């Protein structure tokens, strides 16, 4: 009983983990989403700042995915 619920939790954690790893990739490849000038931030068009911001976000997502199932 306990073992079964433990396995289900780990299975669930596995899904969240994959989702965390996959989400930044989907955003990065979904070009029509960010292929525009507006909104401009500090003079930088959306196309450029969105992708630059996505880099640290993707790194944090990997850190979060790494935390799942450890500790």
């Amino acid at each position, binding site marked *: 009983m306990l073992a079964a619920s433990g396995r289900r939790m780990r299975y669930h954690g596995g899904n969240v983990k994959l989702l965390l*790893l*996959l989400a*930044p*990739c989907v955003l*990065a*490849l979904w*070009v*029509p989403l960010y*292929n*525009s*000038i507006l909104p*401009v931030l*500090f*003079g*930088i*068009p959306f*196309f*450029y700042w969105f*992708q*630059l911001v*996505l*880099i*640290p976000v*993707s*790194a944090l*997502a*990997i*850190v979060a*995915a*790494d935390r799942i199932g*450890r500790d």
Partner: protein
Amino acid sequence: MFDHLNVVATSVFVFFFGLVSVLGFVAARWKAADLDHIDEWGLGGRRFGRWITWFLLGGDLYTAYTVIAIPAVVFAIGAYGFFAVPYTIIIYPFLYLTLPRLWAVSEKHGYMTAGDFVLGRYGHKGLELAVALTGILATMPYIALQLVGLEKVILALGFGGQGIMAHAPITIAFVILALFTYKSGLRAPAMIAFVKDAMIYIFIIAAIVIIPYELGGFGAIFDAAGRAFDARVAANPKLAAGLTLQPGQVGPYITLAIGSAMALFMYPHALTGALAASSGRAIRFNTMTLPAYSFVLGLIALLGLMAIAAGVKVETPQDAVPQLVLWAFPSWFAGFCFAAIALGALVPAAVMSIGAANTFTRNIWKPFIRPQMSPREESLLAKLASLAVKIGALAVIFFMPTRFALDLQLLGGVWMVQIFPAIIFGLYTRWFSGWALVIGWAAGMIVGTSLSWTGTAWVPVHALKWDIPLVGNVDLGLGFAAYNGLTAVIVNVLLSAAFSLALRSRARDETSPADYQDRALA
């Protein structure tokens, strides 16, 4: 040849270059071990911790050529050059999942190269040879292009010269590189990478603060670049350029990012850097921290737009960054920046020659020419091979037009991704068989290469329709162009799967599922 030499910049440049050369030789004593063993010479004894690996991989993957070429594309056509950003975003989640498995199985069985792994997994020498040849073939022009990066900054220092003298500075630089790589092996680039990466970070932080200040802010830079692209497109309506992607560029942008990400860790130099790590944990740590370099790469790409706004004069777009540096900074700091870029050529060139040398020794010479080699002979052969690879790269620069090296590098990516199925699928399953993967590989190489040839020039992308002799024009109806490497690897996978159904493999698999588990996590 010294008439226009920038003496201050050159002095700073030579100082840092000299410092690093000394480091390269001293590195032989670092974590001292018997360098007559190939595992020590060619893989640093697999003892690089998380931070050394971070510097080494960062220095190895984000090369001088990248620092010159990515902003050059942005300078020439704008947004399209930014494909390097999604490319480097999607690669790390993928590496987080796959690379620790490859590290674990390699450590367990002493694999040093992709070819070693393939032979152990599939028990198929033909596939091992295919993987090894692909790696060496793709690496040679890549090393040559590092020399192009080096030559660009030396040119910007004001060196002139005719004929053989024109190449004298890079020849000297490369001889030094060859000598310390021969002596110290992978320890040399690992140690130099600390200095090189620190210098690149200083260069970029200074550039990203000072240049926008001089140009009146980011808004002014993007406005000026946007106007410049509009003017170029007005002059030549067929040109696809702009601050955002043009409709026809979206498909290539996405597929180039995916295909390049799939290809990167198939290259011998990337695997060499990763397998030299001391644990799977160190590799996972790096998938979370290497994006710092990606961020810097994104900023470097913006230098292309700054060069437009600054109005620098160039002969080719590849001069954009060196000329921008000269425009923006005093001589002494320009010398510092050029030294950073030049060292950015040496680290990857060293690791690439080591990766190619390991591959040649372990996967071509040993299995096919002399199976009973001792570790000592292996190490000596690898050292000599690393020299031969560098001489080959110099010869490419001396005797071939740069265009040719660029084309080969472009094709190198298309070829490299063709070993992806054998390596990455192999980390999870033995369902594919050796012969089937060889057939898929061969088909992928042929399809990728022929798609890239337009009759007048080599191009990386191709509309998803083409003329097949006797069959006629095939249009997949998707209405967009895609990176040839990706198109070809899809053909590769389909054929590999189909033939695996027909040709079941009975060859021995020396690995077991437990070998792939990351022991640091278990």
